[in-house]
Each structure stands twice: as structure tokens, then as C-alpha cells.
């Protein structure tokens, strides 16, 4: 598998921008900036997916990650915004000893990566080249044009859909149950004390303690007792 021409250029552009945006995600002082850099990193990876011929995955990445998950992240950042880190009062990283230890492990990962690349890439290249050293021809040639004649249609999405429902139908159903559990779980976790009290979901002794702190809860208790 080798890219050439414009594909190679776009590979370098989006690959480097994915890495730099990822770095800035970790380094940014403001959590909102972190989220925006993560969005640009995810978009760059979606572009890499398109270069790799996985259009459906790229679309799902943009719709689900950028459109859904990151909006959720931004909502929560706005909800719990403490504001101290933007003003520069609080340290955003852990204590120096912990940071040094974790960076040591990251450097070990980098060393393992360099070792693996220097050993493995030559063997990989040998597998993708013909015996005379020329790159293998791609298997799918002369793709059909789309209805608007602006692009070529690959069969990747069709293949993915049929494989998903043919071989992955049981995991597909399990994933839907997982999403249901996630919906119910996040609703249950994010309830306020008042909502828990009015749903009669608090232990009586906890409720009595909380009424001492917040007398308004007693009204709710009255309601539930009646």
C-alpha cells in the first residue's frame, strides 16, 4: 500500500495537523481550547480515513465525534467551568514528580515505536512490492462515477454495510443495548438531589441529613409522604 501524488501531499498535511492538534489538546490551558483542538485533530484523522478509502468511517467520525461527543464535552465544560486555570492561578499539570514519571513511560513508548518501525517497515515494504521492486497495482481499478460526475464511488461503504449486517449482526444488537444502558446510566448519574428526592430514590437517613442543610427538601418529603 503506497500513496502517490496529491494523496501523498494530503497525507502529510493532515497527518502532521492531527499530531499538532493532539499535542495542543494536551498542552492547552483552557479546557474549551482543548476541546476545539481535539475537534481539529478528529477532523484531520477523518481526512486520513478518506485518503485510506474509508468514506463511511470518515462520515461517522465527523457526525458522531465532532457533532455529538464533542458538543457533549463542551456542554459539560461550560457546566463545571471553574475559571481558575484560564486566569493562570492553578497549575494545569500534575506535580513534577508524577509528570516526570509518566513522561519517562511515554519516552519508553517512543523508543519501542522507533525500534518497531526500523525493524518492521522494511519487511512491510517487501510484502507490498513486486519481486522486481515496483509497487503492487491496486486491486480496484476504473471505479464507477457518482451521479454528479464529480467523484468516483468506491465499494467500501457497500461492503461495510453488508459485512456489518452479515457477520456483525449480533455485536450490532449488543451495541444498541450498550447505548440504551449508557442513556439510562447518564440520566441517573446526572440527577440533582431534588430530582432524586422527588423520585423517592434517596435513603431516609440521607434525606434527613440533607434536609438539615437545605430545608426546601422537606417540602418534597412532605409530598412523597402524602
Amino acid at each position: 500500500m503506497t500513496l502517490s501524488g496529491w494523496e501523498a501531499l494530503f497525507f502529510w498535511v493532515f497527518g502532521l495537523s492531527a499530531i499538532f492538534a493532539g499535542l495542543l489538546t494536551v498542552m492547552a490551558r483552557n479546557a474549551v481550547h482543548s476541546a476545539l483542538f481535539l475537534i481539529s485533530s478528529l477532523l484531520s484523522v477523518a481526512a486520513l480515513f478518506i485518503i485510506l478509502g474509508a468514506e463511511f468511517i470518515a462520515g461517522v467520525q465527523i457526525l458522531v465525534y465532532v457533532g455529538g461527543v464533542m458538543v457533549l464535552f463542551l456542554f459539560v465544560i461550560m457546566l463545571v467551568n471553574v475559571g481558575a486555570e484560564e486566569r493562570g492561578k492553578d497549575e494545569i499539570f500534575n506535580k513534577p514528580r508524577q509528570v516526570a514519571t509518566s513522561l519517562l513511560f511515554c519516552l519508553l513508548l517512543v523508543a519501542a515505536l522507533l525500534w518497531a518501525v526500523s525493524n518492521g517497515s522494511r519487511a512491510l515494504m517487501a510484502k507490498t512490492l513486486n519481486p522486481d521492486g515496483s509497487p503492487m497495482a491496486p486491486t480496484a481499478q476504473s471505479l464507477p462515477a457518482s451521479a454528479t460526475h464529480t467523484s468516483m464511488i468506491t465499494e467500501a461503504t457497500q461492503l461495510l454495510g453488508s459485512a456489518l449486517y452479515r457477520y456483525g449482526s449480533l455485536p450490532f444488537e449488543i451495541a444498541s443495548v450498550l447505548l440504551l444502558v449508557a442513556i439510562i446510566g447518564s440520566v441517573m448519574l446526572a440527577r440533582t438531589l431534588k430530582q432524586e428526592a422527588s423520585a423517592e430514590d434517596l435513603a431516609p437517613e440521607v434525606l434527613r441529613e440533607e434536609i438539615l442543610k437545605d430545608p426546601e427538601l422537606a417540602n418534597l418529603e412532605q409530598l412523597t409522604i402524602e
Partner: protein
Amino acid sequence: MFSFFFHSCLLLLQEASGGRLEQSWEAFRHPDLSKFLVIGALLFIIGVAGVLTRRNIIVIFMSIELILNAANLNFVAFSRYLEQTGNVNAIAGQIFVVFIIVVAAAEAAIGLGIVIALYRNKETIWVDEIDLMKW
């Protein structure tokens, strides 16, 4: 136009040095599977560094998303590689990616629900101040 630009750069660099540079220039012009794996691994390492070093629990969650995304990139790159070497089951890599994205979405929803509950009880999102279970 584009290939002319490449070739003129190549000629300039060939003038400047010997054959080793030509080889790496060739690898730069034709990125293969290993370049995708390197980018995936770098994203993974950046994500791990974020999880280990940051104090803000929301940024830690975002670093986890970065790690999962690096795994997705590796899956899709290997899927393409196997497809071009003629493997009929190459599409399985993309199926894995679909399920990883589903699990990541569920994980983000649950995790952020926990963050909101935690903030309501402890009034903090710094992970080093959340030490209730530390012995």
C-alpha cells in the same frame, strides 16, 4: 504541475547529497502503511501523556478519545493494506472501527455524567483533589 514541483525538488536534493537522501525522499513521496502506523502511535503516546499528566478530568477524557482515535486509524490503515494485498476479510477492520466509535460515545456519555455528579458533590474537577478512596 505537481509532479514537476516534486521532480525539481528531487533534482535539487540529489545535487546536494548522495543516494541515502534519495531513498528517504522516495519514502516521503510515497507514504506507505508504516507512516500511518507512526502517526497512530504518536497520537496514542500524546493521549497517554495527557491522561498521565493533566489534572483536569475533562481533559483526561478528551485524551482518552485521542487514544481511541489512534487505534481507529491503525485499524483502517491495516484494513486498506490487507485489501490491497488481496485479503477478502479486510473490511473487518472498518467494522471494528464502527464498534469502537459506538463504545467511545457511550463511554463519553457515562463519564461526563460521572463528572457532573462528582462536581455537584465535591465542587472540583482536579483529579488530585478527588482522593476519597485513597487509603
